């Protein structure tokens, strides 16, 4: 055993330290093996799903074989995924400084537009609108754009094609607007209630429960429209059924920011006291509370993988959190509170503060390395010409950043922002009408229930680790016992002798066991027969002597 001994000088020495156990020398790997191992390790790093189970320790032979098979499947799946990368025909490309002295943030939009192709350059558009600061939203496939001015102006368009969708003036304050699952519907948080409009701008629904909603968020896989109100209430509505799924009070006053974690559909709500709370529709209390900023949280953004959160506050701080470990990684300073933050698919972060927008690269990649270091300079810059930035949103699958500001909407080209390879099954930027319809059906069929939302989305199917005692405690003792016969309603069927009761008697009645259940069943059967007979008699009387023969039992 090792012992700590203090010597005369007050120093501690470890005694009886056992020498490290010698390991058996491993045989040298062949070059091919090494190559394979390397390949697998690389693939695992990117596509791996957790650590493999130690198959050799499994005692049961059959189980061992099965687990081995599963492990092999993982391996091949990972390798296949890695191999399939060859199919990614497009690559993202960033602005690269040619020399050390060159700075990418000094490149102006005009220079970029000159350099890029005509098609791409035409995507940088500028809408001059004068109904107040605008908010914008892109659909999930980046095809349609929704603009909503504070003073009640709403406009939609397919911005690439330049095709206008609808335009309406509500003459009412608009706080937020959001597309639903596709470009057919959008929700608008208006002065009092929240409304849902269709693509033509026809109001199709009014969410009366949503009073003075300030922020809206839509969870596409769950078809949940979430909104936080000025009162601090957070509500979830299932847009496929129209039901309100959950309503919770955040108890922190008027919320200042709302965003969703695309990884696990958890909502992050920013509060006045600088804290961020994480909500799911399944818990009345927040799952996590984080004290992020010293002042009110102005905007929150979460990267696609759900690993990092950027949180800009009124205290001129921009905090980078690792939301897996729930630790703050970095703290940056902004010279004005970050009014809007967005993170692109490729990990560029756009921070709109004041009248300018700065776009940052490698904020997350550098912080993953062993010694997280600060990014010293932004990637791109925009603005500072007197237009207060209201919202920045990256367009999915394109190198475009949409900036809505006090004077309308501008989209700028940000090289390397968009995901170059899209999955058409997931979100297709070029989808046809038919494909859109199909996708809608498909997504409705595969809709996830709100109960599946949790911090760890992989919890489904895992083992319940509660102790038996805890389970007993949590079991609802007041719940009424389940009556197996309650569901034996009469089916509305035209003919046939197979009534539900008879069927139940036959299948589950128990042949020769006369118990209470059986008696009840018999009773039910008798009653039904009587009722049928009575009805028959009545029918006969009604029909009269001539037609009585047509009266039929159970008809």
């Amino acid at each position, binding site marked *: 055993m090792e012992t700590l001994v203090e010597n005369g000088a007050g120093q501690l020495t470890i005694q009886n330290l056992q020498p490290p156990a010698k390991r058996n020398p491993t045989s040298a790997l062949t070059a091919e093996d090494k190559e394979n191992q390397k390949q697998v390790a690389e693939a695992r790093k990117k596509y791996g799903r957790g650590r493999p189970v130690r198959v050799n320790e499994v005692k049961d032979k059959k189980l061992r074989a099965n687990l081995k098979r599963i492990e092999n499947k993982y391996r091949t799946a990972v390798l296949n995924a890695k191999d399939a990368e060859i199919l990614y025909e497009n690559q993202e490309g960033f602005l690269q400084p040619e020399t050390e002295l060159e700075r990418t943030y000094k490149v102006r939009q005009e220079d970029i537009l000159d350099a890029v192709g005509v098609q791409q350059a035409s995507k940088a558009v500028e809408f001059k609108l004068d109904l107040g600061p605008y908010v914008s939203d892109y659909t999930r496939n980046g095809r349609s754009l929704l603009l909503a001015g504070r003073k009640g102006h709403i406009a939609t368009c397919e911005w690439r094609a330049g095709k206008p969708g609808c335009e309406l003036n509500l003459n009412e304050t608009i706080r937020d607007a959001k597309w639903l699952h596709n470009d057919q519907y959008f929700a608008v948080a208006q002065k009092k209630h929240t409304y849902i409009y269709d693509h033509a701008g026809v109001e199709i629904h009014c969410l009366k429960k949503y009073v003075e909603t300030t922020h809206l968020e839509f969870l596409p896989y769950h078809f949940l429209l979430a909104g936080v109100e000025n009162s601090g209430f957070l509500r979830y509505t299932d847009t496929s059924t129209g039901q309100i799924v959950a309503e919770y009070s955040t108890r922190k006053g008027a919320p200042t920011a709302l965003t969703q974690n695309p990884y696990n559909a958890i909502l992050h709500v920013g509060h006045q*006291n600088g804290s961020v709370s994480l909500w799911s529709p399944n818990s009345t209390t927040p799952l996590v509370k984080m004290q992020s900023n010293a002042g009110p949280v102005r905007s929150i953004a979460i990267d696609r993988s759900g690993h990092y959160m950027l949180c800009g506050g009124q205290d001129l701080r921009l905090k980078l959190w690792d939301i897996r470990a729930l630790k703050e990684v970095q703290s940056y300073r902004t010279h004005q509170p970050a009014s809007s933050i967005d993170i692109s698919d490729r990990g560029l972060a756009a921070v709109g503060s004041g009248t300018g927008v700065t776009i940052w690269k490698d904020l997350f990649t550098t912080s993953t390395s062993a010694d997280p*270091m600060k990014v010293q*300079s932004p990637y791109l810059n925009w603005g500072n010409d007197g237009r207060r930035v209201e919202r920045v949103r990256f367009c999915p699958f394109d190198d475009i950043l949409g900036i809505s500001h006090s004077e309308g909407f501008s989209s700028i080209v940000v090289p390397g922002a968009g995901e170059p390879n899209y999955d058409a099954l997931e979100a297709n930027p070029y989808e046809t009408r038919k494909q859109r319809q199909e996708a809608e059906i498909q997504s409705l069929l595969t809709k996830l229930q709100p109960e599946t939302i949790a911090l760890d989305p992989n919890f489904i199917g895992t083992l319940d680790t509660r102790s038996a005692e805890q389970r007993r405690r949590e079991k609802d003792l007041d719940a009424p016992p389940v009556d197996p016969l309650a569901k034996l309603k009469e089916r509305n069927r035209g003919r046939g002798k197979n009534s539900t009761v008879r069927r139940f008697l036959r299948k589950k009645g128990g042949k020769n066991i006369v118990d209470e259940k059986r008696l009840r069943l018999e009773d039910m059967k008798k009653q039904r027969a009587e009722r049928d007979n009575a009805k028959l008699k009545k029918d006969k009387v009604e029909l009269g002597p001539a037609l009585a023969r047509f009266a039929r039992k159970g008809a």
Partner: protein
Amino acid sequence: MPRQAHGRPVQVVKPKKPSKKRASNNRRLNALEIAEQENPDEFKIPQHRLGTIDDDDDDHPRGHEDADDERSSKRRKIEEDDSAEEGSDPDGERWHVGVDDDDDDSDIDSEEAFGESDEERFADFTFRGSADIPVVTKKHRASKDLDLDESSAEGRTDDDEDELDDDFGEEGVDLATAWDMDDEDEQEAAKKKTKKKQQKRRRPGGSDTDEDEADEGSNPTSGEEDISEIEDDAESELSISDDEGDHSRLQNFVEGLSNSREAKTRRRQDYKSLPDKPSQFGLNSTKISASDLLQYIKDPRQRQSLKVLQNNEEKGHEAYKGGVPGKLAPPLAKRQQDRLDREAAYEESKKELGKWIETVKQNRRAEHLSFPLVDPAAAAAPGRKKLGPTTQAQPMTSLESTIQSIMVESGMLSKENRSLDDQEQAYEELQEKQIPLEEVQARRAELRRARELMFREEIRARRIKKIKSKAYRRVHRKEREKATLENRTLLEAQGMIDSDEERERNDRRRAEERMGARHRESKWAKSIKATGRAAWDEGARHGVTDLARRDEELRRRIEGKVNGDPDESESESEDSDQFSGTDDEREWVQNKLDNVDRDEPDTTETRLNSMAFMKKAEAARKAANDEEVKSLRRSLRDEQGDYLEEGESEDDEPAGRQKFGLQATKGEPAHQVPIQKSEFEERESDTELDMVDEPAGAQRSGVDHAPPKATFANNEPTQPPRPSTDTQAQNKKPQLKGPNKTTSETTATTAPGKLPKRGPRVVEHELHDYTSPSESEDEQDTKSALARAIFAGPDEVEKDFAKEKKETVEEEGDHVVDNSLPGWGSWAGEGVSKKAQKRAKGRFLTTIKGVAEDKRQDARLERVIINEKKVKKNSKYLASELPHPFETRQQYERSLRLPLGPEWTTKSTFQDGTKPRVLMKQGIIRPMARPLV
């Protein structure tokens, strides 16, 4: 008495087989047998008792009738065992014991028993006879005995009597006729001997008798031979006597006269009795052997049965102990036969089905099965991934055929579609197979020798090649020298080479260093590394660090003059002459101070340090240290104040590049407008843009600052905000704030339009004591000041949050519930003393376990509260218990991790994952024709 002796030898020779066969063959006699077995007393003992008498008289006729062969063969066996049997014979008791002991004997039916006992007697006689001619004497005596027996026999049949009469008649044969007969016999025997020999070959190896005995006619095949058997005896005697001479021959004959006579009588008996008494199956004496029949019969079935018969005959009588020799046993009862058939069939089918076991197992274990099944042998032939060699098959496509033709033309392929290598190998193999081993070895040895010689020759050639003439060397050397000289002059002209003495000095120094230093590759260093002694041995550790230091130093020296890192110790910083002394020192001191500050919380974290006395000591030391630090900082601040007034030079750090821009940076503040810009915006500020337009030198200077600062900034953020230090940080604040504040203030005031790179440095400070960001250079920033004024301040926020966290911890922690009801188990109401009330209060306490504070997920996260309550709605999707085959949770959960949907995996993975276990192609699926494995 002979019974036992008789029974034994039979068993000794064929210990198991006869009994077994008997068991199976004698089934037809089951009823009798069973009856005998059940009450052996009634039948057997009296029978055997009588046996001595009855045996004999019953025996003879029988022996003559049908058991001649049997007897002879038995006699043979007895002979083999006679030495063992000799002494025991006369014992009456023994006889008894034998019967009782021997189960087999009891099994034997009466007929059999008689036969055996009869022969036993012969054996007996044999043993007492002379050893020289055992056979003859034996027979002689046996015949005598036989005669006696016959004469004394009581229960004789009429036939027997007739035979006896005949015997008597025969006895009267005169010598001449006897001779004649013998001659005849001899001729006959000569003919038959050949036959017998042939048959002997066919005979099973079990009979290991000598020549005489073989001659004695153990051959049981036919009746003819039976008849001739005794004559053979005589003949053999004669043959012996032939060797010895006429006299002895005669003597022998006379001696064996009675014997031969006896044999003749027997033969007569045979002749007479056999036609008179046809056997059970209607076979008369002229028996046809199975082998005779065999050649005429073509039907395989019949042949089969005949073969069986033949085998039985060859085996001798052992096969038919109880029955008639050479005859087929009657068929078994159908039930028994069927049972046997079934047993045999079962064995067969088991064997047959066993072949399928592996296949079935494999198919059961297979992940997927697709019917119709593919024969693996056929399917696995060509590798899927690699191209098969073109030589294997005939060319399929035109391309292949052209390739092949080209190969053939170029001689890489023979016409027979085999590569030359293959052919060669095949040829060699063939050769080697034919050649004897020694030759092959010799050849190999020769080959080896040749190879060895070649190798040596090669080495020699190489050596010789190296030997060059003096002239050659000289010429080359001169050339080389010339080249180096030229090179040197060239370099010298460019001033790239140090003077000679300097170089020499350098070399010397390096050498000394190298000698002095314990080298990294030294044995000592390696041993230290291997044993890990440095971990606990202080001396070793010192050595190691010393070594590392020296190594570093040495390397730097070897490289030449390189400036040291700012982090390096003072002594090294002295070397780097690029530092301005004050700059460097101040910076270094500041760094050190910061490090000291940062390091302090670390020390408190160890367990030992958390003990009371350590804490006390630590606190005292810390106080002293703080005092020191404070004073240091103060002095430093004063210095810095002066220094910062000088301008930008503070940030000039030793860099690998030359600097030009001192004047420019100095000039900067003059024309810079004091715009407050945060870190995020600084760069594209107007001033900076202006800077771009500025002369190159100035700009470069601006940029040049960046790298060292970046590194400086890097050092700081590596320390993530440490929540645990929070309280300490707060305690420390008064001390630390001063210097920090002042520095930032001064920088802000002196360089309002500071270059953007200065930012990080300040940020680092802020990051370090996160809670006081507003004390940074931004203090003058009106906005941040406003922000500070508006917001309650980080301390308040933190405090609130801590309070909230504490509440949640308490709420989710253990709860104690007092279940005691007043009045239950104690007195209640008025007048109860406080003491009693108190006692009654805590009697029924139950604690509901919650999450302990240190077990919480956020136990170490100062600024995070994680809800520890179970989300009930989620538990709907949890598995309530571990599903059957899995042993641990990890295994189960691992098995779920691979998503099945097409969205998450590649198509092939998806298809693999969702492939049904059994796939069937349309159409008729035939069962497997043969096992696949």
